[in-house]
């Protein structure tokens, strides 16, 4: 069985799954729209969650939040299921495919055999769509891949029941009810307000304050942790910013694209201006990644090099603080 499903590549998996499922169901919603309405943009330093032996830094909200908020704000009903056994999980998957219903799955990355080896880490919040089954192979639309791919039932079982932080437990989700017309305008405003609230939150490790906190830590790392660990941690920040998983795909640019699209829908010029400002901030994040990567490439860990990238982050934090205050007033 194969559902007549069109695969569109996206920059990020969760946005991509939602956008592609919406398009399948006849609603043309772009990836940036999903990201913006779902208030995907975030910054969070998570000291207790280690990924590859270094602290995790997230540039987006918790897995699952984007779809949840997007659905609530646009008036869509979604069904989410978790399972105790792979047998139950597979039976329910087949049931949906037989009903011509492509479904989103949360999976672990480590056993995704179609990924390049270098990308396969133990990270359990990746998302993909299953849209059919042929012989023993499931037809997979993984939004970060250019084309569709397949996984055998054994391979799919493994990624659906990956263990560790955010263990998916066969997590499957799909829309079950749509309004006649999506409440896009009000959804955009709710989405923006939520992101401003998150980024300006008075919590030390979250949002703008989280960026400042991370900058402070970077200054301390070479002395406190030694050159080797400091380099490893810094590399992790860049990896999380630029790669699939928690970061990826330049979230600041996706957000800027969202603001540009929203300025047209809401007829609000201020949002178009702010989109340009966010693009500049996105470029600053890239400069930071470039300079940070130079530090651990040369393996020189002069304190001033660390101080330099820390200062870059502080500039970004200040710019984002001003940005989100303006954005809050613009809507």
């Amino acid at each position, binding site marked *: 069985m194969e559902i007549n499903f069109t695969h569109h*590549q*996206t*920059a990020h998996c969760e946005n991509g799954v939602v956008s592609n499922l919406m398009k399948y169901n006849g609603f043309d919603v772009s990836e*940036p729209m999903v990201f913006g309405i779902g208030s995907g943009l975030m910054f969070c330093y998570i000291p207790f969650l*280690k990924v*590859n*032996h270094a602290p995790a830094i997230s540039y987006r909200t918790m897995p699952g939040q984007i779809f949840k908020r997007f659905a609530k704000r646009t008036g869509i009903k979604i069904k989410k299921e978790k399972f105790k056994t792979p047998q139950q999980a597979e039976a329910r998957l087949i049931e949906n495919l037989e009903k011509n219903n492509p479904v989103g799955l949360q999976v672990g990355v*480590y056993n995704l055999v179609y990924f*390049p080896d*270098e*990308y*396969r*880490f*133990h990270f359990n919040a990746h998302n993909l769509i299953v849209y059919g089954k042929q012989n023993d192979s499931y037809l997979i639309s993984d939004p*970060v*891949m*250019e084309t569709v791919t397949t996984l055998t039932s054994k391979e799919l079982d493994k990624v659906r029941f990956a*263990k*560790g*932080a955010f*263990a998916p437990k066969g997590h499957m989700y799909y829309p079950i009810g749509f309004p006649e017309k999506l409440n896009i305008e009000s959804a955009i405003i709710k989405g923006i307000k939520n992101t401003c609230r998150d980024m300006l939150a008075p919590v030390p490790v979250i949002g703008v304050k989280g960026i400042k906190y991370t900058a402070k830590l970077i200054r301390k790392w070479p002395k406190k942790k030694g050159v080797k660990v400091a*380099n*490893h941690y810094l*590399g*992790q920040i*860049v*990896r999380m910013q*630029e*790669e699939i998983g928690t970061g990826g*795909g*330049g979230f600041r*640019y*996706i957000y*800027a*694209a969202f603001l*540009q*699209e929203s300025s047209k829908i809401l007829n609000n010029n201020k949002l178009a201006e702010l*989109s*340009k400002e966010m*693009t500049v901030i*996105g*470029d600053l994040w*890239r400069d930071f*990644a*470039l300079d*940070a*990567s*130079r530090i*651990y*490439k040369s393996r020189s860990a002069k304190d001033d090099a660390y101080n330099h990238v820390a200062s870059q982050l502080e500039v970004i934090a200040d710019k984002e603080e001003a940005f989100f205050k303006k954005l809050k007033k613009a809507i």
Partner: protein
Amino acid sequence: MKKSDVPQDKSSLEAGKHKELCYAVDDKGEYTTAKSSGWQPKTIALDNAIQEINERIAKAKARVLNKETSPIEYYMELHKMDIGILASYVGLFKWQVKRHFKLKKFNKLSEKTLAKYADVFEVSINQLKDIDYGN
């Protein structure tokens, strides 16, 4: 980022002919998407992480050969796991897994427990006991 600035650096991804989608601005200032073959800072970060893992694997291997730890620690590193992840895969507590790193404990493990580890690492029990098995 301008569309013309979307990086097309060589990366390990190129081997798999995998391109990523990026959002960038065209000449008119409109957001659009472009494909990127890779970006150097990202490749450096990834290489750095891989190197770190390879060092951990080599160290664990040396410790196993020196009889300082059990092969479980080596296979754990080989599979990019930490104790927490391994414990959840075998369905044991972290402290139990840590104890199984001790050779004395490891040598007394039941076939059932060994099978659990072997299953997670996708090796036979013989391979689990002898890391040079088949090499």
